[in-house]
């Protein structure tokens, strides 16, 4: 029997309720204000008083107003029809809300997440008498590109026998498609949708695997230098204006995965708008379908209620886990996890909890860790493999990475793409700093090559710093050429114009191809007489390479530009491929590029090919641990 209560106190979006009966932690309750029902969640209980965070504006509430408890936890609805939608943090479809209530988000108005009237062509895959468990398929419906599995609800414990299964036909999400019987003979009717508590990870799988396969984002600096693995985690901290959101947008557009879920958490509404207006018009080259068909957006933007911001990342990840259970690769992009952490801070402050660093609650770290732990590559019980990859941006206060949210995140992610103000000020996009970023995942280029590039960049940076003190005239020609090489590699490979349709999207094949070309340029010897000659050569080479970057892959134009480039290169360089070059090349690697800037820790982990992400060691029994 659900409990009732009345409001005792109000402090912004936190209310204290005097209740009678039994209530649960994190249970949903509704505040009754005239004909409005304001959704809220229990966050603390003490005696006969409970603190509830209200997911709406609390203006006009009075002490003594009625509160009804529901007995249920906060859930998401899972079923066909999620793809292509734009939800708020509580899974209300915003397009539907706009149809019903107009320009503004009215208080207390909600709509079911899944389209209730839409018909889905159901094809059963089990027969009466079959034994099933939670997560097993009963049938499929086509949704966008995928065979959407209609599964036994994840929360059902034990084994069941299928008593009744619907014939192949069209059904609505709420139609009954099966009846199953538990061990005691109790019958359970099943529909094409069910509810799942958002704060609970879905862990019905055979085993959790080590994330080894690269997830191709088509962003060169990420794929080649600081890769992300399917089922892995990564974070993008950066000061404001450094391009976090643009990077996330590019990733959501170009990443080669099945489904992308964007959790726009406490960020600008304008960014969500760009996505929802542009994606339907963009065709995914891999599938030939609109990008929106593989995308779900959870948009709880910064002016929407703060409490719903806190829950929005869980809403997003729960939907991701649902599609993972169908053997799909899901990429969840959370922008920004700092806003989510701030929502926790606001709540914690109103609960008058003892504050930790920068007033964040003391449990911040464990909450961030358990959120990223919901990523993973898993083998399902039917042998298929599915994954959820989580990438979160972090917006550190003052751009200082020493703050609690960044630090707590760095502890638990497998790749770190640190954006720097210096690079973005110089318009070097993406502004991922190659000298501070790292990744524990395997790239598709060899670890030796990665190591060489990192050494080159560190050394070039050192020379640059040194030149500021001793000047160009105090720098040897050999050092100066290394500096120019570093600068060159940075400007033609690491920097990428995300707004250019060709340069902005670099396939794996193309990356491998141009990287080989660059490797040749970098390891070549150039017998220049003076620095101006060297600079002029690299400026010219850069121009040719930028032309190459602007030419579409596999076209005659591309070949022509490549030939121009190779011609110039051969004219000015002594290749190190001939015999006399081998000792020279070694000397180059060992002496000139030996940087005092220590990268040993990161390059070593890359070389061993063993991701050091702590959860990966759990391996097979990860599922049981949770």
């Amino acid at each position, binding site marked *: 029997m659900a409990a009732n209560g009345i409001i*005792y106190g109000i402090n912004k979006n936190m209310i204290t309720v005097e209740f009678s009966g039994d209530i649960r932690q994190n249970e949903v309750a509704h505040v009754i204000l005239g004909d409005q029902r304001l959704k809220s969640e229990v966050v603390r209980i003490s005696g006969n008083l409970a603190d509830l965070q209200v997911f709406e504006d609390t203006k006009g509430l009075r002490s*003594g107003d009625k509160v009804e408890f529901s007995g249920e936890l906060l859930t998401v609805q899972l079923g066909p029809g999620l793809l292509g939608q734009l939800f708020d943090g509580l899974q209300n479809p915003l397009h539907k809300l706009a149809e019903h209530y107009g320009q*503004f988000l009215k208080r207390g108005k909600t709509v079911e997440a899944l389209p209730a009237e839409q018909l889905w062509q159901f094809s059963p895959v089990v027969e009466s008498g079959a034994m099933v468990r939670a997560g097993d398929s009963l049938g499929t419906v086509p949704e966008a590109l995928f065979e959407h599995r209609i599964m036994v609800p994840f929360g059902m414990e034990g084994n069941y026998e299928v008593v009744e299964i619907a014939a192949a036909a069209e059904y609505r999400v709420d139609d009954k498609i099966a009846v199953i019987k538990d061990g005691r003979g109790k019958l359970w009717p099943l529909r094409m949708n069910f509810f799942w508590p958002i704060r609970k990870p879905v862990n019905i799988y055979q085993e959790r695997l080590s994330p080894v396969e690269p997830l191709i984002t088509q962003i060169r600096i990420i794929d080649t230098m600081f890769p992300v693995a399917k089922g892995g985690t990564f974070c993008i901290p950066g000061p404001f204006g450094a391009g976090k959101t643009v990077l996330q947008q590019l990733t959501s557009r170009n990443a080669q995965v099945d489904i992308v879920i964007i959790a726009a958490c406490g960020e600008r*509404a304008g960014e969500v708008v760009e996505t929802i207006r542009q994606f339907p018009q963009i065709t995914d080259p891999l599938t030939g379908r609109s990008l929106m068909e593989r995308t779900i957006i959870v948009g709880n933007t910064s002016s929407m209620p703060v409490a719903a911001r806190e829950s929005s990342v869980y809403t997003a990840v729960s939907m991701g886990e649902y599609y993972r259970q169908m053997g799909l690769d899901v990429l969840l992009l959370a922008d920004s996890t700092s806003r989510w952490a701030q929502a926790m801070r606001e709540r914690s402050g109103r609960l008058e909890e003892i504050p930790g660093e920068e*007033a964040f609650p003391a449990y911040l770290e464990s909450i961030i860790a358990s959120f990223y732990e919901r990523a993973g590559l898993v083998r399902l019980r039917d042998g298929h493999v599915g994954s959820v990859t989580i990438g979160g941006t972090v917006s550190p*206060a003052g751009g200082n990475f020493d703050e609690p949210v960044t630090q707590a995140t760095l502890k638990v992610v497998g790749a770190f793409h640190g954006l720097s103000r210096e690079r973005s000020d*110089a318009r070097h996009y993406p502004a991922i700093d190659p000298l501070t970023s790292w990744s524990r995942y395997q790239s598709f280029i060899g670890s030796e090559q990665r190591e060489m590039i990192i050494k080159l960049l560190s050394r070039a940076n050192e020379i640059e710093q040194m030149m500021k*003190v001793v000047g160009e005239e105090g720098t040897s020609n050999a050092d100066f050429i290394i500096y120019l090489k570093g600068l060159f590699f940075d400007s033609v490979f690491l920097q990428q114009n995300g707004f250019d349709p060709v340069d902005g999207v670099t396939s794996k094949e193309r990356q491998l191809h141009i990287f080989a070309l660059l490797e040749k340029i970098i390891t070549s010897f150039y017998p220049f007489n003076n620095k101006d000659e060297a600079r002029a050569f690299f400026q010219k080479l850069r121009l040719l390479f930028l032309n190459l970057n602007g030419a579409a892959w596999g076209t005659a134009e591309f070949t022509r530009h490549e030939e121009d480039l190779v011609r110039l290169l051969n004219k000015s360089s002594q290749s190190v491929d001939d015999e006399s070059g081998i000792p020279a090349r070694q000397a180059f690697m060992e002496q000139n590029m030996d940087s005092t800037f220590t990268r040993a820790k990161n390059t070593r982990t890359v070389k061993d090919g063993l991701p050091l992400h702590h959860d990966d060691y759990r391996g097979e029994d990860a599922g049981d641990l949770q």
Partner: protein
Amino acid sequence: MMIIEGKMRAIYNKIWRVSGNVIMVQAEGVGYGELAMISAPGVSTLAEVIKIEKDRIFLQVFGGSSGISTGSEIRFLGHGLRVAFSENLLGRIFNGIGESRDKGPEFTDNLIEISSEPVNPARRVIPHRMIHTGIPMIDLFNSLVESQKISIFTTAGEPYNALLARVALQAKVDIILLGGMGVRFDDYLFLKNALEEGGALAKSILFIHTAADPVAECLMVPDLCLTVAERFALEGKKVLVLLTDMTNFCDALKEIAISMEQVPANRGYPGDLYSQLAARYEKAVDFEEAGSVTILSVTTMPGNDVTHPVPDNTGYITEGQYYLNNGRIEPFGSLSRLKQLVNKDSREDHRAIMDCLVHLYADYQETMEKKAMGFRMSAWDNKLLDYGAAFERELLDLTVNIPLSAALDRSWQILAACFKPEETGLHSELLAKFWPRDNEKSKADQDRA
């Protein structure tokens, strides 16, 4: 007991606590966010309910708590702060709580409550119209876009109000809302006169809280401006909202939070500073089939420190910022996040030349550092020095007032006067199309001479 608007409302006269600008009174049936009028001999001020604990009501007193007695009368009004909305507001000047400052009539009809409902993101459209200002550092490098929210990051003493006034006068918008928070009285007069002399006062509405007014009154200025702006936008008008200076607004928030004994997050500011600012800035919107609200605010950075909580949180919310430093808009750090949405359609060379100029200017600054340390200048360094000087003189200077296309042409001339085409790093196709021919180049040189 007295009757207001048909409702029985009790008058309370027992104040239990006065602390800072927050008072506590025992009362019943009071709604959260409701306004109250506090009257005592010689004192009459509005207050807003900011916390309820059973029958203990905490009120934030706009006029300040000085002079309030434990026996003052408190009358709850049954509604939040409201503003009269009509065309009659145009050309008028009000104070921080919406009372007339210009001796004009007070309005009591068509009152609307301060709006707190967020716009449904599904009903927003992608901004796509540029607002031309005639300032190359804005138009060329960081275009201002209709429905953008952007802040001028600056320090005390910089001519930020002059910049605001110039944008207000040169931008083609239907209505201007100017919100002043803690502005000095002579700044207020300056802004008012600038609008008046530029002939823009008739399409402007001013809500001005001066430094002499009670601090808490400035808290309502952004809400008043944005509520009115939103209404005009819904009627199809292009509205530009100017807010100066948001740091004073944040400081007022801090003061109330401390009085309420809230746990401070950073440097005394409340943990919800981000949400508070976002609730205001997110009012910038381009409505489908209606008008738009564009917000240009001023954020003064204490000690020119961009990591201070106010500019820091603002930077994460606004769609870019203009750094106003030493009387000019800095090319580095300044950013309009929406410029990509408009500079692709302005002219094909816009983006490329913008990036190129900034790249080279960054190189110039490095050369300047080297020069300052006494190093020998290479041939390349000398080219950069020429370029830097030309760039600062002909584009960076805030007095330059030319339309965008002229600024683009001028950029090519500067490049041609200083560099060879391949030294610019620009794409060959653009160079073929836009690089000035020799005769034009020498003509440009003469012009400049």
